[in-house]
């Protein structure tokens, strides 16, 4: 459950960032940072969809 929650949380956080961006709630200084975060979240979620647990473990270990 925890692991699944992690990805569900990432997904929810991504939605929040998109929402805040589109409502112009971010100033230019936050934007760069949030963009980076959003990209990370997207990659995390996409990896979860298309990579095996072993591959994901490897990716996480590289960091």
């Amino acid at each position: 459950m925890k692991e699944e929650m992690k990805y569900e949380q990432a997904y929810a956080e991504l939605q929040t960032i998109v929402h805040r961006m589109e409502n112009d709630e971010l100033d230019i200084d936050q934007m760069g940072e949030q963009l980076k975060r959003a990209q990370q979240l997207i990659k995390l979620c996409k990896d979860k969809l298309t990579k095996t647990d072993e591959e994901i473990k490897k990716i996480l270990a590289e960091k």
Partner: protein
Amino acid sequence: MNSLSLLELNSLVRKTIEQALPQEYWVEAELSECHESRGHCYMELIQKDELTATPVAKASAKCWASKWTIIRPYFERTTGQQLHAGMKVLLKVYAQFHEAYGFSWIVTDIDPTYTLGDMARKRQEIIRQLKVEGIFDLQKELRLPLFCQRIAVISSQTAAGYGDFCNQLANNPYGFQFRTQLFPATMQGEQVEQSIIAALEKIYTAPPTAPEGASLPAKRFSQSNVAPSGAEGGAYAFDCVVIIRGGGAKSDMSGFDTLALAENVAQFPLPIITGIGHDRDECILDMVSHLRVKTPTAAAALLIDHLKGVLDVLDDSQARITHYAQQRISTLNAQLSTLTESIPLLLSRCLMEKNHRLELLSEKVKLLDPTLLLRRGYSITLYKGRTLRDPKLLSKGDEIETRVEKGTIKSIIT
């Protein structure tokens, strides 16, 4: 004393029965046993008291092979079931007493619509019971996890449907990863109920795999009050359960319509998807499950579509934030270049204004130039270098200077 042989006495019984019950009768009864032997069908009929369920009548019945080969296919095609114990049947019978084998009803026809009606009644009763228990819709309240990839499959191991299901998941066009595990169960006949319940139990208690790599701090989620022994804190090894059965739409569905199975499925904490391939609309297992589809491949397609939905949102988010960022940057750039362009203009406007004011000032200054006054014949008198405005300030011997157009006159006061 006159006595009869048993054969003579039994013959008397046979003749009496043949005379007294010459017709055929339609009789409603429940089967308490039923089996085939050498092409004949042997049944035990029973009638139970409606309240106490104690038998109030019993009898044997037989259907000879000559009739049975005609009756059986029709019955099974209509009801989708084989004759089995517990089933209510409407039989056309005549009485037969055989001196050696005793009394038996001989079956010449079976009305399958009666059995269908009875099955429908039983289903309605089960549905009513589930609603009374408040569990009929429980599965509908669950949600498939976004990343629904650990699939517990309940199926018979050999079923083609199971193979189709796994192949379809494995060969999905998006490269989604699924992990399936089979929990074998009997999907036909009277074993269905118990074997599916046993499989659900195994899924419920399967220990979840150890969390991988870096994870969030452990949180405990209490899904139910009773934590399964193998699954700590309500964490399950699977995201959903798929109950599938391949082909054979005409096969026996009765095992899927029992109260105990429905109760187990309805109250299961993980969403259950059914794909048990049948024509009927009113299978109770389908009704209480989270989602129902027709076939195992449709179940696989549903799971793939579900992940595709998640992927679409991710792609859409990606596109939206890229679009947003680009737009935001180009807006800022535009603002910046507008500013840059306006600076020289503002600057020159500002300079012009200053120049103008300078000219005005110099005009004024020109008008105030005292030489203009001198030229017109006025003079200025200075005392100690300052303009003298009041003669009373002067005393005898003071020297004053008088400026006229063409020079200066020095005078002493006398």
